[in-house]
């Protein structure tokens, strides 16, 4: 047992390594193994109380706690950014309870816990994505009864999911679901990819990284093992498409990343910037310059590396 014993530093009570007790971690690992063995299948697990409210990523935190070790490097992102409150506090949580080395660099991380995004930089073999999941059941809005949705998954009865897409096209001319867009995993289970934008769905397809999903409130764990097919649902004559923007990132000029719209002044000025903050910084460090970088720098919104 590697119990955390830095009691003397008085800010750290005698918690077990990575907060959860070893029995709980074993239980979660068993659920994870089952989830990896049946890609896309939702495995129930005994979700624990965590020192933050359910709905704030407790599922992801429990998964990370169960797999993290002293050799790991942890990256935490929220909406693509490493520096938002939730990301910072989760990172700090593992720094304090698991002596975790943390990083903002995607390619340095061994574990990336995320809410709402997959990093733009390609994932590598050996990396583990941990997704925080608010609603693991993709059929829930269509079928309120758990007993019924389980049967639908068990027997691959996914016509109803398709009806939802049909309704979208009938009403709006296209599928308007933009995030948490349902996917078919390994040709067998329909899965909720968590509220990532559909822009990120293709990154899951045949990814070399292991992808783990934890839903704390709903007490479900599921997984996509490396090199597994993840296909977004669509119609033959209305194929799946990702979002696109008419302009590149205002800061780094990237034309192939997911952009957030940011209001920059009180006059209604706006710009589109990479939601993946680390990706954007890396590109700027490499000398890529977006059309609004100079303006943003002048306003001290970002540092212009080229100037400094």
């Amino acid at each position, binding site marked *: 047992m590697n119990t955390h014993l830095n009691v003397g530093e008085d800010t750290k009570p005698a918690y077990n390594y990575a907060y959860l007790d070893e029995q709980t971690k074993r239980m979660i690992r068993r659920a994870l193994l089952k989830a990896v063995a049946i890609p896309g299948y939702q495995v129930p697990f005994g979700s624990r109380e965590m020192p933050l409210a359910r709905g704030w990523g407790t599922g992801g935190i429990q998964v990370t706690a169960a797999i993290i070790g002293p050799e790991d490097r942890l990256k935490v992102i929220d909406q693509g950014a490493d520096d938002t409150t939730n990301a910072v506090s989760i990172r700090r949580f593992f720094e304090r309870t698991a002596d975790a080395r943390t990083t903002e660099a995607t390619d340095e991380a061994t574990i990336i816990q995320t809410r709402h995004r997959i990093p733009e930089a390609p994932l590598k073999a050996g990396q583990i994505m941990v997704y925080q999941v608010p609603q693991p059941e993709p059929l829930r809005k269509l079928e309120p009864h758990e007993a019924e949705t389980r*049967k639908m998954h*068990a*027997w691959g*009865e996914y*016509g*109803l999911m*398709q*009806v939802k897409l*049909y*309704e979208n*096209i*009938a*009403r709006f001319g296209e599928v308007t679901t933009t995030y948490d867009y349902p996917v078919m995993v390994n040709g067998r289970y329909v899965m909720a990819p968590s509220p990532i934008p559909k822009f990120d769905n293709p990154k899951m397809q045949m990814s070399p990284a292991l992808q783990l999903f934890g839903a704390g409130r709903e007490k479900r764990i599921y997984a996509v093992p490396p090199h597994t097919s993840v296909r977004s649902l*669509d*119609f*033959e*004559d*209305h194929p799946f498409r990702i979002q696109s923007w008419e302009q590149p990132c205002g800061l780094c000029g990237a034309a192939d990343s997911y952009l957030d719209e940011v209001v920059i002044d009180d006059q209604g000025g706006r710009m589109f910037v990479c939601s993946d903050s680390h990706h954007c910084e890396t590109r700027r460090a490499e000398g890529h310059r977006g059309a609004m970088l100079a303006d943003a720098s002048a306003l001290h919104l970002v540092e212009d590396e080229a100037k400094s």
Partner: protein
Amino acid sequence: MNMQVNPQELALDPQPLLSVAGVSRFYGERIGCADVAFDLWPGEVLGIVGESGSGKSTLLRCLAGIDKPDRGEVLFRGGAEPLDIYSVAEQERRRLMRTAWGIVHQNPRDGLRMDVSAGGNVGERLMDNGARHYGKIRETALDWLQRVEIAAGRIDDRPRQFSGGMQQRLQIARVLVSEPKLVFMDEPTGGLDVSVQARLLDLLRVLVRDLGLAAIIVTHDLAVARLLTDRLMVMKDGRVVEQGLTDQVLDDPHHAYTQLLTSAVLTV
């Protein structure tokens, strides 16, 4: 001799589509239905009549596989292999419900998805069965809406915006789109105005004939039974007291209860 023979009708099917044997369902001491047995042949329409509480709805639920009876067997010969619907895996039974069987509920709300458009309601069974071409699904849905006399312009409206008669017609389209071999109907015209009933009845009559559907229709309305059914089973206290050709049973009833039923109607 002027004897034209339709070749389709010359070879009467060698096997019944549905064979029902000894179906019984009890609620404690009370009999839901007892020892019901019959064969249903392809294209045949069987009516089950009787007053409220006679067991006809209980029987229909058992026959349709919604409830499991305490005793009895139902064999369906709609596919390659005869299927014992009570011993078959639930998965297979559910598949049957989406393909070769259909259930038309008395209350359209029980058979429709009220938050899904008319087109989506009709298209669901197609998508259940693997259709993944939006344009073709929509085309088929439009065709069926027209067959049940719902204007093409209503395809994207939700059933909530429809009248009771339209909802019932939509439910029928939703069921028939998968071209089932056997349809169960529970008081399909119940709760509708008389004029709306007449239209629905005529529609059902034409569809059943054109599609060669076998159907089991539960009704307390003898006029409905006369118009839609070939054969009739009269139920009382959970048991079948008389059965036969519909016009035989209605015009020359032998059982005391059937005589009472038929004499209680003004004209049928």
